[in-house]
């Protein structure tokens, strides 16, 4: 009875007054920590085990770039370029007198076009933007027959 009483007291007082208590406590703690380690690995596995998406190449045989043949790239660019005048007008209308915000707003429209196109064509968003970059660099004609403007408006963060 006395032993039971001592054990109960040790429970509530969290006493580790003997070497036995100490070793038992350390062992249990070690087991709990090791088991937690297993849990950490299991929990993180869905995040750590997934393979990264494959890279695209700058140039491949038969005029393929970024995994896309040239006609497809030109179609994509033409569609993006066709949407640009309306995006510019939307930017100006949204933020009159604020050039950076107008350009930023245009880019928000461009993003919507690019995302929709990526889904529709079953390609990656990166591929869409790579094609846009190629078209601008190569001065492919836009809807009005002129190349797209290659510059942007310098940064001017909002203050309100």
């Amino acid at each position, binding site marked *: 009875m006395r032993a039971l009483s001592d054990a109960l007291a040790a429970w*509530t007082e969290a006493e580790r007054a003997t*070497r036995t208590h100490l070793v038992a406590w350390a062992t249990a*703690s070690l087991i709990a920590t090791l088991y*937690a380690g297993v849990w950490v690995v299991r929990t993180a596995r869905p995040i*750590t085990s997934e393979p990264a998406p494959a890279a*695209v190449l700058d140039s491949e045989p038969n005029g393929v770039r970024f995994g896309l043949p040239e006609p497809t790239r030109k179609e994509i660019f033409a569609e993006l370029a066709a949407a640009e005048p309306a995006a510019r007008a939307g930017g100006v209308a949204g933020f009159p007198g604020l050039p950076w915000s107008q350009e930023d707003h245009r880019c928000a429209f461009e993003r919507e076009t690019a995302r929709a196109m990526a889904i529709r064509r079953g390609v990656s968003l990166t591929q869409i933007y790579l094609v846009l970059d190629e078209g601008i660099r190569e001065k492919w004609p836009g809807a009005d027959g002129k190349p797209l*403007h290659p510059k942007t408006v310098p940064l001017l963060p909002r203050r309100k």
Partner: protein
Amino acid sequence: MIDEPRTRRFSDPFFAFFGVRVILWLWAVRTVCPALFENPFKLAHYHDEHFYFAHEDAARITIAQFKQLPAWNPYYCGGIPGIANPQDSTFAPEFLLKLWYGVGPGRRLAYLLLFVLGMEGCYRLARRLDAGAVGAILAGAVFGLSGFFMDVMRLGWLNFFSFQLVPWVALAFLHGIRSWPWRVGGGLFIAWMVLQGGLYTVPYTVLMLMLLTAMTTGELLLGPRRDDRPRWFAPLLTFVVIGVVSACVSAVKLLPMLKVIIDHPRIWEGGEAQTLAEIMTRMVGRPPPIEGQNAFVGQFVLALALLGATFDKNGARVLALTVVFFCLALGDYADWAPNTLLHKLPVFGQLRFPHRFIVMVALFACVGAAIAVSKLEDVMPRIGQVLRDATVIRPLGELSPAARLAFGAFGTILAAKVALYVWDGFAKDSYVETLYVMDAPIARAGEFHQSRGNRWDAQVWARASLGSLQCFEETEFPMSAALTGDAKQEERPIDPNHAKVVREKWTPNEITLQVKAYVTTTVLVNQNYHRAWRTNVGTTYARDGLLALQVPPGEHRIVLRYRDRLLRTGLGISVVTLLAIAVLGVREARLRLRAFRARWAAIRW
């Protein structure tokens, strides 16, 4: 707050093992936020997630691919400072996860790590303030998974996850009043916040420390004088040591960042005032019906925090902190409003949206709730004693250990029931099933060049070895209007008849060029000028904001290097401080080992 916790409860041993708690925290994250574990390479929809991903990816590429420190980020805005950017997180410890697993999975693992740290920190803080294990577990789980963190995870603001370290700083302060290692630990946690780009976290935490310093100093000056209590100035000393350690450890980021902040102060002309109802809605409303951040903890946690304050001194102190931060969260509702006055101070003046103080309200409300739940545990043995006193005429002695344990167990069951009820409601309303819906960016193997870009999908560019000229930054970094996304050569002579320029090697911080100049001429680099760019031939200067290089006639192998002196100085200070801390740590470990051996020798099997 000064005194160590004394109350022993039946539930104490259940969660005493760190491993058991870690399992519990992981289970809680998996239960409430399964979205975190799906599609690790995908991104959340919100553009700020893309912004941070882009910066971290640029830093990872600079380190992993080019073996350089990301002092300069050429992948955004036409080139801006990297580590010195206030929002950069290169030196944060969790950046190693991004470096090893890639930015997408690394960010998820960082969230997981910080979730667990936040829950454990809140648990320990509640225990330090004499809460029982059951209440502290509830506090840890609710704070760590509160609406604030769910919200900032949706937005991609990993740097706001440094708020998960706030309870550790509070804990380090309270322990640090008596312990040197804890003071250093507190400094390390704040340094982590700085290195993570915790632009809100650090000022909020410093404010919390100031309040804690005032409260504990008052407690020491006005409370009873005892031998086991430290001197009255111990809290102030702790505050100073934490500050010095954090500044020295984070000097590698702090020094170059301060220069950026001084040169390009973040000007914020807007104010914000919230009603009491709006702030309450952010704490208890689900889904959050108003714009901005919420810190959902639920109505029961707030109610429990009030109860805790009624029956416990520590509960009252914690409630006082909750009220202070609540008043700050109300914003600039008057000229004398706490936040309006706070905004007049140097660093605080650059902060927007005072309603974000609700994360601090959430923390202290959770700790207060833990104290309240613990009172349920405490009351049962007392009831047992009252029953014994009422039924036994003589002698009116103490309860036997077994009876005390039985009543304690009953109290624990009661507390656990309450905690589970609160948790169930909270977890149901906090559930996040889907979050990551955006395509993973794809790498492109090719030479770097600037592109017109688009900041709304900023995650795309660095991985594709492109720079996005179109960008957004909170800091108004100088940006040239002459940058172009269709340059045939990224480094070119100003007049093609005066020189020929061939790129020999390109890295983010170092560009090697072969230049054949027929006359003294200028070579233009399609990046923004910064004074830290150095050259081995000629001189660098700004031309229309572009990085320009004046070259004498002749054939030259020119190496342009970005060298930030403040970054180097800061790096030296950080390394020396960490070494000193390591030496102190070894000394402390030896002392503890010696103490353990002495104890071991003093006890029997």
